[in-house]
């Protein structure tokens, strides 16, 4: 009697597990990646005037992405979000030349990067600087006040140099959430962006949304490089839309 009960239990469990496992790959192999971003995550009160000017005057749009290692995918740089951003911008602004360069500063805190910004801007002369930061500071648990001053100094220097700035915050990384405390850095970036009237691309909230909505399973360790590529493709597209909206480039200018 007792063993019968266990058999029933075992069969039920096995059946449940099998159906679960069968369902998983079907979802993963879905070719069309859906990664909608709610409008409020892409809206900003701040605007990108230099970008708008350049596009309206038919000048080339020079974008400089400054970031740490989460701005690339190891050994597949062409699939990382900066490259995808360039492609999406080109598509949306067919009459504009879009140049994009990436300045990777691995293992550099916001303070380290802020010191290099002036020189970078002088050599590259960008219209728009996309500054992705916060992750290294969170890992090293830099004093949030120091992080904040570094942000203020960096954004100030960029604005002084006459470029538009977009901040990109941390990735949503559920696996390391119990090890890295991101919230002080996320908060400071939001506040600093608000204070300097700079659009903040909320990568954290967007990826969080994708994870919650089931677009991506960011918890899983099984996906390998494919997941990274798909996430970056979606991030690049969303960032392009964000930049175009913040520059108030309606459909009229885009054609």
């Amino acid at each position, binding site marked *: 009697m007792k063993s019968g009960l266990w058999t029933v239990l075992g069969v039920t469990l096995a059946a449940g597990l099998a159906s679960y496992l069968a369902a998983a790959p079907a979802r993963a192999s879905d070719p069309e990646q859906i990664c909608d971003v709610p409008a*409020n995550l892409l*809206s900003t*009160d701040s605007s990108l005037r230099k970008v708008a000017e350049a596009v309206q005057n038919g000048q080339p749009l020079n974008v400089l992405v400054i970031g*740490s*290692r*989460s701005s690339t*995918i*190891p050994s*597949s740089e062409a699939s990382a979000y900066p490259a995808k951003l360039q492609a999406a911008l080109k598509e949306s602004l067919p009459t504009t030349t879009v140049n994009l360069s990436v300045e990777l500063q*691995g*293992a550099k805190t916001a303070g380290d990067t802020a010191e290099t910004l002036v020189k970078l801007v002088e050599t590259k002369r960008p219209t728009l600087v996309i500054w992705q930061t916060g*992750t*290294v500071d969170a*890992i*090293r*648990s*830099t*004093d*949030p006040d120091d992080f*904040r001053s570094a942000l203020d100094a960096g954004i100030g220097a960029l604005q002084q140099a006459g470029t538009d700035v977009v901040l990109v915050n941390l*990735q949503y*990384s*559920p*696996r*390391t*959430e*119990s*090890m*890295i*405390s991101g919230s*002080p850095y996320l*908060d*400071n970036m*939001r*506040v600093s962006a*608000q*204070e300097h009237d700079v659009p903040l691309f909320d990568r954290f909230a967007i990826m*969080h949304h994708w994870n*919650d909505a*089931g677009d991506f*399973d*960011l*918890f*899983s*360790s099984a*996906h*390998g*490089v494919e*997941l*990274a590529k798909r*996430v*970056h493709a979606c991030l690049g597209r969303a960032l392009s839309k964000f930049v175009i909206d913040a520059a108030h480039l309606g459909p009229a200018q885009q054609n």
Partner: protein
Amino acid sequence: MTSIADPISGTQIADAKDASGAVAAAPAITMPATSERELRLDLFRGLALWLIFIDHLPTNILTWFTIRNYGFSDATEIFIFISGYTAAFVYGRAMHQAGFVVATARILRRVWQIYVAHVFLFTIFLAEISYVATRFENPLYSEEMGIMDFLKQPDVTIVQALLLRFRPVNMDVLPLYIVLMLFLPLILWLMKWRTDITLALSVALYVLTWHFDLYLSAYPNGVWAFNPFAWQLLFVFGAWCALGGARRMSRILASPITLWICIAYLFAAFLVTLSWYLPQIGHIVPRRIEQWMYPINKTDLDVLRFAHFLALAAITVRILPKDWPGLKSPWLRPLILCGQHSLEIFCLGVFLAFAGHFILAEVSGGAGTHFLVSVTGIVIMCAMAWVISWYKHSADKGAARYKSAGGNADLAGGAV
């Protein structure tokens, strides 16, 4: 033996009550008039423990019920305040009856227990992080995995952890609690002399902390996530309330003006918090105020957070009288039990949060699984609190002694 080992969690109260008559006559410290266990304290400490647990888990539906989404302060403030209150209540009596040396000895024993609990949690954390480091390879997060670098130097890391300088995320509350308890003998000794001056000194230290930017450094860099120089204010304030301050404030607390100020402040804080989640309504907060207000500093217990806690507490005390019959209701029993065994349940909560993270990572479930993990965790916490309470009052050898104290065992949380 048992009564000394775990005084905060209740059994001590039974002993304390017997002596309260004698203590009440002593003029130096005004003990609370009634020596009944304040079930409201247990209730809200239990609530704080639940909320801390939920806040430590990845965001899920239940996260929307935690107070940090509706204002500036969160469960940590409740926990530290009530800890100060109960610690002063219990050890203040001990200091009266047995003197400074014995009370200090008891406090130090408690500190040691908390320290051991912290090290125990750190061990579990090490196991978890090592597992993730060896199994988890996701190119998307190659940068975030840099957090594992400390595993390359386990000798340094572990020593720093024992020195409380290396603390993983979510393990900041116990070190703060250890430092605060370490200074409790001094605080109580000063309070025995002059309660109000002690509170004034505490405020002064808080002000100096902000003025001179005092902090404790952490390893490998950064500072303590909860600055003890600032957070002592809540702890000492709790102690001050326990040693008669609350009673003296009752006139102020009962005034309708206080009530309306509190409601207005809580409402304003709610609107500000709402603007974090709904950027569309960001304009309701004037830019001027925004610039003055941000960032709201948790590390140094921002005065806005402290005020928010005060307002919450003032309203709570008002709408929830001490003799509210609901406190005896079986529905609130699990919360109260958790609050009565706070150290054990806190540690269990941190452990369950680790475990919850782990399960969520392994089964990669959706919102349903998240919810299930949270609820299961809370059920486990309650069950554990019940077991501990059963041990204390039925299984331990000294059980007979507590039973002889009549209704006291009930007050201490023994009757289930």
